[in-house]
């Protein structure tokens, strides 16, 4: 059946165009918009027998009411997926922008994907060693997990993300059949370049697919970018059995594009003007991480988002945190102190670590050490608050030991080099060493046997 083509629009409003009395047009169908010799893509976002509402990914700049031609393609937005995509660079809707050839072979897949049936999922348990102590010990990344980095402007989230991609490996196994899918939404050219160059240096670039929608690219295109990227990732993971690490940055820009579109559609806003379905929409992106029974690949997602004004209760980090399996929160105070990576451990969390650490996975004492470090570091904050009022001299001996522990924890445990790749054993031993600053009686989260095996008190320096 030849695709239907319409000439002329009835209305253009922000990123939306309207066509009167369309026939045989389906919801979510993809459309081609032609103006002069330029071709753009759009998607039907609302349809009635009177009117089709279409969002234009590349924006409506330069479109005219009379000359614009619109062709309905009768299918949702599909992208071609194949092995040839590895090492290539695409724009936000999956068209090559590296001067290479079009992707011709391969399956066409609906970029929206389909939800994984919960009974088909396999519960993720494999520990990924990132070589970053704070993450490995305290908010362990698990293969198949979605673990976002909550960052802020000026914080080194990109460096951390790159370090993770460079160092990530399963325990006792060299990085083998892995791939990286990198989706950029509205980030700066510099950031995109930094990430690409880092991947080039480490040689990972040939296993990487990049989808770039940069800050000066059309905003509406961003709505498609993570979906296109995840469609490629699903192909690599579940058809090609690769372990795929997906970096999505910056989700805040994605959500803003969504808000822009919702506002143009005249929808009832909920918090801070974001649409009421922001949760469901984000879930349709994040939930595409995971593992499937009887298939060998996996999708591990590390979305990065910058918290507007460092506010973790802002709808974007808030809803993200409700969907993802934990979060790595970066802390501006630590960053100011020159501590890299500046991970605010108390606010951070990995929900899947409980089943992927300890006996048979990392080391028997891992769960308890990690719990003890959390509890002790949390106490450090209380003692610090007290010390700032009554002065350090007035503290009890036990409280003073917490201050020493806190100092050492930040400078020795959290702080590490960008190329420093610590094994989980090194990390845990370091944790035990620092717990030596505390008197034995304070260690209530570890067992007596573990104390006997690992604990060594550090006397006055």
């Amino acid at each position, binding site marked *: 059946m030849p695709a239907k083509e319409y000439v002329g629009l009835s209305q253009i409003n922000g990123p939306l165009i309207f066509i009167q009395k369309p*026939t*045989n*047009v*389906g*919801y*979510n*169908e993809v459309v081609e918009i032609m103006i002069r010799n330029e071709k753009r893509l759009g998607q039907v*976002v*609302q*349809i*009635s*027998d009177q009117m089709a509402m279409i969002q234009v990914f590349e924006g409506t700049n330069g479109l005219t009411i009379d000359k614009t031609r619109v062709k309905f393609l009768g299918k*949702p937005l599909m992208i071609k997926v194949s092995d040839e995509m590895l090492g290539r660079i695409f724009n936000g809707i999956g068209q090559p922008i590296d001067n290479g050839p079009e992707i011709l072979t391969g399956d066409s897949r*609906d970029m*929206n994907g*389909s*939800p*994984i*049936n*919960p*009974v*088909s999922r*396999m*519960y*993720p348990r494999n520990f990924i060693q990132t070589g970053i102590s704070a993450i490995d010990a305290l908010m362990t990344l698990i293969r*198949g997990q979605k673990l976002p980095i909550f960052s802020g402007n000026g914080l080194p989230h990109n460096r951390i993300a790159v370090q993770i991609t460079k160092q990530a490996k399963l325990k006792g196994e060299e990085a083998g059949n892995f791939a990286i899918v990198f989706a950029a939404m509205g980030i700066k050219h510099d950031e995109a370049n930094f990430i690409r160059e880092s991947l080039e240096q480490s040689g990972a670039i040939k296993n990487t697919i990049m989808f770039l929608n940069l800050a000066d690219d059309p905003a509406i295109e961003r709505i498609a970018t993570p979906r296109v990227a995840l469609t490629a990732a699903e192909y690599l993971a*579940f058809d090609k059995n690769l372990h795929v690490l997906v970096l999505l940055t910056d989700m805040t820009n994605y959500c803003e594009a969504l808000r822009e579109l919702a506002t143009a559609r005249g929808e*009832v806003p*909920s*918090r801070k003007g974001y649409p*009421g*379905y922001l949760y469901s929409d984000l*879930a*349709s992106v994040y*939930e595409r991480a995971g593992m*499937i*029974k009887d*298939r060998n690949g996996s999708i591990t997602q590390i979305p990065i988002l910058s918290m507007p004004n460092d506010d973790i*209760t*802002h709808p974007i980090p*808030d809803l993200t*945190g*409700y969907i993802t399996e934990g979060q790595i929160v970066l802390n501006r105070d630590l960053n100011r102190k020159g501590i890299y990576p500046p991970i605010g451990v*108390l*606010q951070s969390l990995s*929900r*899947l670590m409980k*089943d992927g650490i300890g006996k048979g996975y990392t080391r028997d004492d891992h769960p308890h050490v990690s719990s003890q470090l*959390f*509890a002790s570091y*949390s106490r450090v904050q209380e003692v610090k608050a*007290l010390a700032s*009022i*009554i002065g350090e001299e*007035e503290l*009890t001996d036990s409280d003073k030991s917490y201050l020493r522990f806190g100092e050492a924890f930040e400078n020795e445990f959290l702080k590490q080099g960008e190329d420093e790749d610590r094994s989980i054993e090194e990390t845990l031993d370091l944790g035990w060493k620092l717990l030596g600053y505390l008197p034995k*009686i304070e260690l*209530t*989260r570890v067992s*007596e046997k573990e104390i006997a095996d690992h604990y060594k008190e550090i006397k006055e320096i």
Partner: protein
Amino acid sequence: MDKTGEMYFINGPVVKAKKMTGFMMHEMVLVGNVKLTGEIISLEGDDATIQVYEETTGLKPGEPVSGTGDLLSVTLGPGLIGSVFDGIQRPLDVLKAQSGDFLERGVIANALDMKKAWDVQMPNVKNGDQVVGGQVIATVKETSSVIHKIMIPPSISGIAQNVKSSGKYTIDTSLMTVTSDDGDHEIKLYQRWPVRIPRPYIERLAPKEPLVTGIRVIDTLFPISKGGTAAIPGGFGTGKTVVQHQLAKWADADVIIYIGCGERGNEMTEVLEEFPQLIDPRNGKPLMERTILIANTSNMPVSAREASIYTGITMAEYFRDMGYNVALMADSTSRWAEALREISGRLEEMPAEEGFPPYLASRIGDFYERAGRAKVIGDDQRIGSVSVIGAVSPPGGDFSEPVTTGTKRFIRCFWELDRQLANARHHPSINWLDSYSEYTSELKAWVSKNVDEKFYNMRDRFMQILTEDDTLQQIIKLVGEDVLPDGQKLIVRVANMIKVGYLQQDAFSDVDSNCQLKKQDEMLKIILNYYDRANKLVSKGVVVSEVLDDDIVNTIMRMKENIPNDKIEAFKDVETKINEFFDQLDKKYQVSVEA
């Protein structure tokens, strides 16, 4: 049955159709050429608005909408237990068999296995007997934990005819015909019931018995009754889901219904992998043998999320009608409320607070009021209960938002999860000052009789110590602990003992994950005995460091992990050890005082 309308508008999960005269409100309809399941949510003139339970991509104006003649209903019969359903009761394993690892659209699946033959016992009813709605006419051993009672549907009563004898039957078999005034009704192993209508009962009863959860902070401080309602509000990462999972594992209910409503896929997988391995402490059988799961994860269609809550509670009521104690966990009701908001937004209804529709609170109320302990219909005096525990996920952890405040009006237990406790990895992070339970006075009689007369007195003393500690903590924050008089220092230390040694409970510990009431009772006694004896000495002027012996404190802090539920007698040793320690101190200071 042949009624057909025509679609003319599509926006996400909401579609509108014309030529719909004759359709019922809340009728289940099949939408479009691919026959997606939907439900009519408003009728106006010749037009109907329909919420569609599947992804609407590709639907076109002009496609048909056909009626089913049924309200949105669930199928109730043997085969429910151990199953995993989506929000509109399609079994997910059947969907997997039909469409693979990813969910496809327009797949029709029977909720229950129609081919499986069940061993049906029918001892009581004979031809010519009078039967009434709710009467148990047959039993099926559905799993090793649950005897499924086949009941006459609520609205039917009359004379039994063609009664089959015991045997192996599929659920579609007619067990008997009931002749009533309005004709003959075939009674099969299953019945259908519309999800939005509560199943009838004879009379609501007062809550008397606790729903023992094995979680100390709940059972001791903020208990819930069988037939009670509770809400667990908490920001992300505060441990709502872990608490819900703990409840599903250890609550002493006969049947557990767990609704994953708009939550993570991996969480459902975790339950699916874990529950068959876990052993029900009541009877030694796998926990899955008493559990029904409803999984409508966050990336599954939003309107099915709205329906999942009703699907779950209708099943709960059905098992209540058999005389069972059912516990239903809904994680999370906020996602359900958001589904309401999303549909309401697409309908362009006038929003109330934060974009939620104005009828939000009344919907929440309707849902929680379906919980309760009741004398159920039938010919014998069965009593059953439905307890409902709903998680609430307030945006930004702000408890003044509409879903939390709306929920608070209709529940009687409020277990508030505290961000600061969670950050310090104090789990379960239920705040002991802001949480409450209205059931304590009603449950006191049962606990006094079955556990310990003094249990609730001890509980009250715990609360006193914790409240006093809270005041003292404010002072400590300002001037440090050193300036407190010794009596108050002791309170702070004992409060810490309660927090760390009693309220903290590791959900993943082999020993301490589930703590039975007897063990809780022993632990209460030991901590309070320590406090009383220490306090006696300190008030005589003994310095507080004397009573804070490392070994004794350590013993108390670790008794939860060292003594399992089935070795309660070991608490005697702890008690003796503490008493000997204090006897010695008493002697020492007695001597010095006399000298």
